[in-house]
């Protein structure tokens, strides 16, 4: 089995690492985080360098890239600038939904802008009463002639106000089966009738999330993405790759924290010797390294399966479940190794520690991942 990446992938990662060192150095990312400020300049640098064009059709300024390459990009960004990696990963589902289901006009509007540096399209799915039970959403779309009017509200809509568009999920209240009653729309964020309430969060400080109040917001009917009442399967089509991207970003962040911890262990002297010479610390670091290796192999395997059109329904859920927990554990261990310094706002491990926690909740909670994988595993055992 050849575990090497292609030369093109290696060159891209080398180039991306240098770009991130130049345009998203740690000091800048720390300052942006502290100021709760979106990383506009680093994001634009990613656009100027063609990173945002990866995986987008060439007619919209895109560059061909397989899922393994996108995984490596997310991992590299996660290692250097976790916030950027999160933003990029969150955008994957909405951008790919547009690519797959958008009309030519919608694709031209959205994709061309994204490749040139627009923030990702926000996903408007979760509502106050509809989180893990996403199909319980109530936002409605009322069609009248050639226009559609939306009413409802969305919760935890990340990037909403500062994106140009929300990919809005609505439900026909008269539909019997909720999974066949959901539609997907492109809603410009400056549409009259939209109001935003920014949420205060423990982490993700430079990645704002909002409650969005939608009152008689009206757009032309051609803002439908895909087909009426086919929104649910359309959305599910790209949830797997979004989860993989978030996993890759998390692995990068975990590795960054490990690098910090092992460097610290080699240099911090207590009781007359570096703390890395104590077995207790070596055991912690070894466990961290094992988890990082496991996570890397898991994400690369899932990416390979997706690139080869193999089904990953159970596999991607198990990967997300494992990586979300393991990356939280690794970063927590890094803080433990670094002791008091790790707990201060001066060091980045505190930011990684705050930011990684949402990975066990966002993109599908740990419990939902069990719900996806469990029945699949039993079904396969029965068929075997």
């Amino acid at each position, binding site marked *: 089995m050849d575990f090497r990446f292609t*030369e093109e992938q290696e060159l891209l990662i*080398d180039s991306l690492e240098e770009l991130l060192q130049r345009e998203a150095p740690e000091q800048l990312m720390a300052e942006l985080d502290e100021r709760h400020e979106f990383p506009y300049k680093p994001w634009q640098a990613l656009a100027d360098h063609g990173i945002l064009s990866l995986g987008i059709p060439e007619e919209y300024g895109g560059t061909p890239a397989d899922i393994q390459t996108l995984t490596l990009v997310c991992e590299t960004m996660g290692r250097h600038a976790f916030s950027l990696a999160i933003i990029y990963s969150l955008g994957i589902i909405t951008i790919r939904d547009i690519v797959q289901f958008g009309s030519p006009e919608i694709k031209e509007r959205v994709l061309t802008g994204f490749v040139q540096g627009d923030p990702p399209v926000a996903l408007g799915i979760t509502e106050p009463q509809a989180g893990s039970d996403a199909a319980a959403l109530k936002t409605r779309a009322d069609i009248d002639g050639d226009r559609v009017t939306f009413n409802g509200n969305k919760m935890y809509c990340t990037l909403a106000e500062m994106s140009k568009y929300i990919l809005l999920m609505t439900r026909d209240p008269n539909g019997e089966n909720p999974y066949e009653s959901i539609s997907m729309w492109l809603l410009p964020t400056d549409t009259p009738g939209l109001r935003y309430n920014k949420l205060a969060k423990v982490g993700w400080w430079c990645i704002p999330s909002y409650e969005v109040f939608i009152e008689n917001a009206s757009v032309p009917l051609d803002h439908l993405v895909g087909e009426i009442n086919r929104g649910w399967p359309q959305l599910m089509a790209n949830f797997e790759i979004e989860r993989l991207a978030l996993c890759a970003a998390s692995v990068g962040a975990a590795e960054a924290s490990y690098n910090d911890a092992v460097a610290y262990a080699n240099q911090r002297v207590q009781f007359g010797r570096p703390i890395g010479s104590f077995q207790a610390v070596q055991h912690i670091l070894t466990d961290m390294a094992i988890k990082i290796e496991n996570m890397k192999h898991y994400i690369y395997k899932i990416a390979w399966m997706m690139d080869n059109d193999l089904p990953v329904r159970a596999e991607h859920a198990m990967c997300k479940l494992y990586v979300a927990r393991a990356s939280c554990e690794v970063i927590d261990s890094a803080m433990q190794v670094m002791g008091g310094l790790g707990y201060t706002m001066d060091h980045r491990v505190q930011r990684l520690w705050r930011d990684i926690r949402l990975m066990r909740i966002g993109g599908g909670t740990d419990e939902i991942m069990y719900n996806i994988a469990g029945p699949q595993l039993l079904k396969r055992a029965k068929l075997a």
Partner: protein
Amino acid sequence: MNIIVCAKITPDPSDIEARGDGSISLERAEWIIGGFDLPAVEAGVRLIEAHGGTLTVLSAGPRPIAQSKLKKDLLSRGPDALAMVVDDRLRDADTAFTARVLAQAARKLDGFDLVLCGEGSADLYFQQVGLQLGELLGVPTLNAVNHIALEGDTLVVERDLEDEVEVLEVPLPAVLSVTTDIHEARLPSMKEILKAGKKPVTEWSLDDLDLPDGSGNQSEVLRTSAPEQARRKQERIEGGPDEAAKKLVEALQREGLI
């Protein structure tokens, strides 16, 4: 414009290991494109983008320089083509030998208006190859160039000297060695990386170049060794700033350093 940029691929100096006997080992070193040469490549690419023409990167060295990834790395930074002289007899080539090889290779390419070199190589940094190359090609040659503009058939270049900036007109063809100030090297995008594998690469050995007799090394390396490692005393000076400063001065005086 036809531009050639000379780039040296060397073992990464940061991978050099010092053995116990003071000798150095490059066995585990990765081969990299010289950091001083990438700004020269960028300078060439910008001239072509502004004025049209073609850019060829020229490199000479032993077999490890011909790694596929290194070729793609060079070609992903804007050049149109790559020419390489690959021969293990070039391992440990001195500047005179290198310059002769590059001169002969440049003559084999389809003519040139300008040859650009970095200010020095990443490994030995003798800063001589560019000047020797210009002399061998019989064209005007300058080093320490940090700005180039093309005006008609003439280059206007700037050289940042210690106390002044020299501005010169240089007729073409010419050889210029540029400093790292000239431009920050662009980072390859995925588009350029994907295109790189399709660009033409020409490879020669020394036997393909018809080098004149006596073209080998003009110098002989007697020994290369790492500097002696100093034993660190690891003395800690305690106390507030004034007290510590006083103790530091006393310690330096005791050691005979001030």
